[in-house]
């Protein structure tokens, strides 16, 4: 905010809004006093907003860092959504991960994300795998939609990897047949 300048020309509208850095001609008039009050009020309002915002974001950062399970501190529910999980960036990779794919009619492996219409741009596979890890029921929904659209049975493959134990090859493999009945187990391909 600019500092008040003596002799600055202010339109009545800008003074009324309190947006003009004042003092206008005719200092001492009621108009000037009134607009100075507005200026002060605006500055105070802005600074209250600033202080609240800074305090809240600091509280959110500390709360998240010190929350239970990390260093044993209390986890407060600060209610505001941006303070819920804003500071986590790849802190810990899960030790067991699953990779999903399907077999095309000519026997090729394709990522399952090909069957999802609303895949994320530039991160479709990661988004789908995260969603499937948190909500396995999503696989059934993908199967139903795919079968409705294509009308043919498809084999879905799930490979489980243990990152602490030979991560270069799957620890477990599972194959599920997706047909009109939904997903049902099948023998994994060799």
């Amino acid at each position, binding site marked *: 905010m600019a500092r008040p300048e003596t002799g600055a020309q202010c339109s009545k509208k800008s003074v009324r809004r309190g947006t003009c850095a004042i003092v206008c001609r005719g200092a001492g008039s009621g108009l000037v006093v009134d607009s100075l009050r507005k200026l002060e009020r605006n500055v105070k309002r802005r600074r209250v907003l600033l202080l609240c915002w800074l305090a809240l*974001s600091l509280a959110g950062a500390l709360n998240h860092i010190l929350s239970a399970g990390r260093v044993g501190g209390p986890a407060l529910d600060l209610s505001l*959504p941006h303070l819920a999980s804003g500071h986590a960036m790849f*802190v810990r990779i899960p030790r067991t*991960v699953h990779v999903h794919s399907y077999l095309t009619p000519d026997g090729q492996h394709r990522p399952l994300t090909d069957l999802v219409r609303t895949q994320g741009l530039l991160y479709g596979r990661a988004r789908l795998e995260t969603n499937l890890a948190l909500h396995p029921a999503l696989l059934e929904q993908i199967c139903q939609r795919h079968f409705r659209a294509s009308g043919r049975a498809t084999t879905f493959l799930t490979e489980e990897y243990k990152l602490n134990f030979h991560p270069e090859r799957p620890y477990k493999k599972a194959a599920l047949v997706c047909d009109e009945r939904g997903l049902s187990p099948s023998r994994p391909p060799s």
Partner: protein
Amino acid sequence: MTRSRLARIERFYGALGRVFALFETPRNPRLFALFRMAFFGGLALHFAPSLLFLEENYGPGVVRAQRWNPWLFEHLHDVPPWLLRLAAVSTLAALVMGFTGLRPRLASCVSLLGLYTFTSFNALAVQTLALGCAWGVLPLFCVCRGASAALSVDAAYRQRKGAPALPAPSVLANLVLWHVLLTFFAAGVEKLLWGWPLNNEMAMLFSTPRGWILRDWAWSLSLCRREEVTLLLSWVTVATELLVPLLLLIRRTRLVALVIYESMFLGIIAMIEVPPLFFTTFAAGALLILDERDLRGFLAHLRWPWRARH
């Protein structure tokens, strides 16, 4: 009366003003416009697939997940489809308005309302990593002025009408910068508390299978599976997250710190499948640290051909 009041204001600006000046200094409007476009563009890319194919994630009987507002999660399944469609179209239109700088405060309020409602209805359609920052920055756009000071429809319209230019963003730009850098710094502290860099978590990242989170070219780099390389990357990551926000505050180290910061985010988006919104918010957010003096020095450093000609 007026003089004493003026003196009070002078004092107010003098003592307290110095403290608040850090957050009240106007920032370069063009750089902020770049951030505005990156942020709203990132939001549009992030949400467009799920908002365009509504029935995929918000139709009857779909698998839903609760992540944000429990009340909205419980109550929105009865909403008629036409109303959902209207909300989706309004939200996307608001994102376009934000991107172009057409009434950005109104656009941000509508975007915030729409996006928060849709993510509360079903959190599955969008990954949450990038959204923490979005929930933090959108309310700032709603409350503070100055988002459309440059490279915007509003600014172009005012210029055409011959009206005075809009004020440069001050509080808005500084709080966005604060939000981005605090998040970045806090992520570093959090890593430290989880045992980084000694636990070599990067080795775990690079041992994930193909098609999980690494891009194919990064997965095929055998160099990144060597223990010494992953340990070095762990150290570099933690050191960057803890030191760069501080080095950005010092003018002499600002440019180097900014190059390291941007390189890190370029490396992340190039190697790991993360939402583009995550990249656009953080990479463009830190650029706001550059003031006019930095920019002059930076441009002089580059010695662009067009500058040489003039």
